[in-house]
């Protein structure tokens, strides 16, 4: 399977824009069909994400893991790899970070970097396995990363109650101490008690670093070359296998960091029995963001806004909150069938010229 993406960023921006519009239109249609008023619905949806400082903070915090999982998927895409295992990598990264936070009684300033390191390593190791299998044995990464998802799911399912059991609950770990949390007082106060945390800045730093790697380094050039044409890259003397493993490793590290922002940032413990859906949403984020780091960031913010506002919409009006997920899925379908949108754009252009 070769992943082909159209060159030309203006085009992909227009496609993304139109896909969003179509997605929102489809959502409006659904709302109307089910007997509610789409305008009121959307008003509440966006108000829910933006109407107060605290809600803006919550929206940013909701977007944070999405930025990182989106970045993870986008990065692997650049090397022609489909990382559907971001969920498992997030879970592993989050677990490693929580484990460090619960085990080492260190001050915040030392503990946080250690937790981040643990998260990055956890995610990276979890992605290196499929990366290696792809490079060495040509095992398709879609299947191997899904298997890795379930393996991490069950390992954490048993490891958390065995080693980090909560005070009362078997289903989650103990809460991490304040010194181990990414939540910091000044940020919480700045956003009126929101759960926004340092994870947001980590995500932004990651966006910048990844953009730099992809666009300004030899490594980034090689990774993209492998993604563009594996055989040509090999002919040009690039070590394809090494680059595949490296790409998965970095993608996993990003997802692992995303897991940390979820479990020791937005939340304060890790839960068992759930593969974080944010990992799968990363695919949507990367796709809408046209696989560019900055594009992914804005796509994640947009999806975060929808996710953040849907509960309030549901509280105000009789529209099931799953409308947000439906809108996102529709946007992705339109983005996937971008050819259609491109044809539409071309048609409109021709008409203009003709007149």
């Amino acid at each position: 399977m070769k992943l082909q993406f159209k060159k030309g960023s203006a085009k992909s921006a227009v496609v993304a824009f139109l896909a969003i519009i179509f997605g929102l239109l489809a959502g409006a249609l659904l709302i109307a069909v089910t007997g509610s008023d789409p305008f009121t619905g959307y008003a509440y949806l966006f108000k829910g994400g933006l109407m107060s400082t605290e809600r803006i903070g919550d929206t940013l915090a909701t977007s944070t893991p999405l930025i990182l999982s989106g970045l993870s998927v986008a990065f692997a895409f650049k090397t022609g790899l489909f990382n559907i295992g971001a969920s498992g990598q997030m879970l592993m990264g989050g677990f490693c970070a929580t484990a460090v936070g619960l085990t080492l009684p260190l001050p915040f300033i030392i503990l946080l970097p250690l937790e981040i390191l643990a998260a990055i390593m956890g995610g990276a190791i979890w992605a290196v396995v499929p990366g290696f299998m792809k490079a060495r044995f040509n095992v398709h990464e879609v299947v191997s990363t899904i298997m890795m998802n379930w393996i991490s799911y069950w390992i954490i399912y048993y490891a958390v109650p065995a080693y980090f059991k909560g005070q009362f609950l078997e289903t989650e770990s103990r809460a991490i101490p304040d010194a181990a949390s990414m939540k910091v007082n000044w940020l919480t106060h700045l956003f009126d008690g929101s759960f926004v945390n340092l994870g947001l800045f980590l995500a932004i730093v990651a966006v910048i670093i990844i953009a730099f790697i992809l666009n300004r380094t030899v490594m980034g050039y090689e990774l993209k070359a492998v993604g563009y044409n594996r055989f040509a890259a090999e002919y040009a003397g690039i070590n394809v296998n090494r680059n595949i493993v490296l790409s998965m490793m970095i993608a996993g590290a990003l997802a692992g960091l995303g897991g940390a922002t979820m479990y020791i940032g937005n939340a304060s413990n890790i839960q068992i029995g759930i593969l974080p859906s944010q990992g799968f949403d990363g695919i949507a984020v990367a796709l809408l963001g046209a696989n560019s780091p900055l594009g992914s960031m804005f796509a994640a913010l947009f999806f975060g806004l929808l996710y953040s506002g849907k509960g309030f919409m549901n509280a105000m009006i009789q529209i099931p909150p799953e409308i947000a997920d439906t809108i996102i899925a529709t946007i992705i379908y339109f983005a996937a069938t971008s050819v259609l949108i491109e044809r539409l754009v071309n048609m409109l252009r021709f008409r203009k010229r003709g007149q």
Partner: protein
Amino acid sequence: MWTILVQIFPYAIAFTIPLLITALGGLFSERSGVVNIGLEGLMVVGSFGGALAIAKLQPVFPNGAVWIGIGVAMLTGIVFSLLHAFASINLNANQVISGTAINMLAGALTVFLARNITGSGNIRIGSGLPRIDIPILSSLPIVGKLFFTQTYASTWLVLVILAISWYVLYKTAFGLRLRACGEHPHAADSAGVNVFWVRYIAVMLSGAFAGLGGVVILITYSGEFTGSVSGLGFLALAALIFGQWKPLGILGATFFFGFASTIANVSQVMPALASIPSVILKVFPYVVTLIALIVFSKSSQAPRAAGEPFEHGKR
């Protein structure tokens, strides 16, 4: 050990069947050259369509409702698979992404609709299929106990479909054409095969079979639509590769999954297995799949043109 085997065999088979039929659907799609990772979503829509039909019809036709539900589920699967067919065959879109969109859309849209219908997002059916012992055959030694007791009618339906599929794939002209489309679409095209049409049929078959897989879960053990099939669609995809894109291969692969996960589930109540840590039993099927993928990688039978869009002029 024998008693344990006899006891869990019927449940292992019950768990295998939805995987088997879904993987078989995936087989048709991929052998024709269209990668379909939307199987999970197609199972979900099948389960939704089936649950809705059964829940609405059961008060009126207590006996026929389940079978109508099976039909509706397959139809829903076909309709939804057209989205994938359109994107990947007409528009040459990236098939993996289109499949992902199908998965996302199925999970969100069905729950959205179910929330509007039932208020909770779940649809519960009154009752599913009864389990029956096959007369005469069930009293045979050994096999009688393993294969012919406590079976569901849907199990036999799926096995018949499997047999027909094998025949169609290897013994008919259509099967030959379909496989040709997945290996050398341009050669097939020059030989006068309508690649577009064959691929459309194949993707629709995958929709129908995955929809059937989804509804089988509903009428055999779950009894309730919940908006998810907990990753079985992806497992079916793995079984397809594990089974090397061959009907009998996927029969073996899915049965392995069914058996291994049933053992993991009931190990808690089996003194003989209680000494093995549960985590090992739970990850066992996944680890074995990874190892199997490595072992088979040397002799991979993957359809050569799977995932490649087909364009007339391209040589």
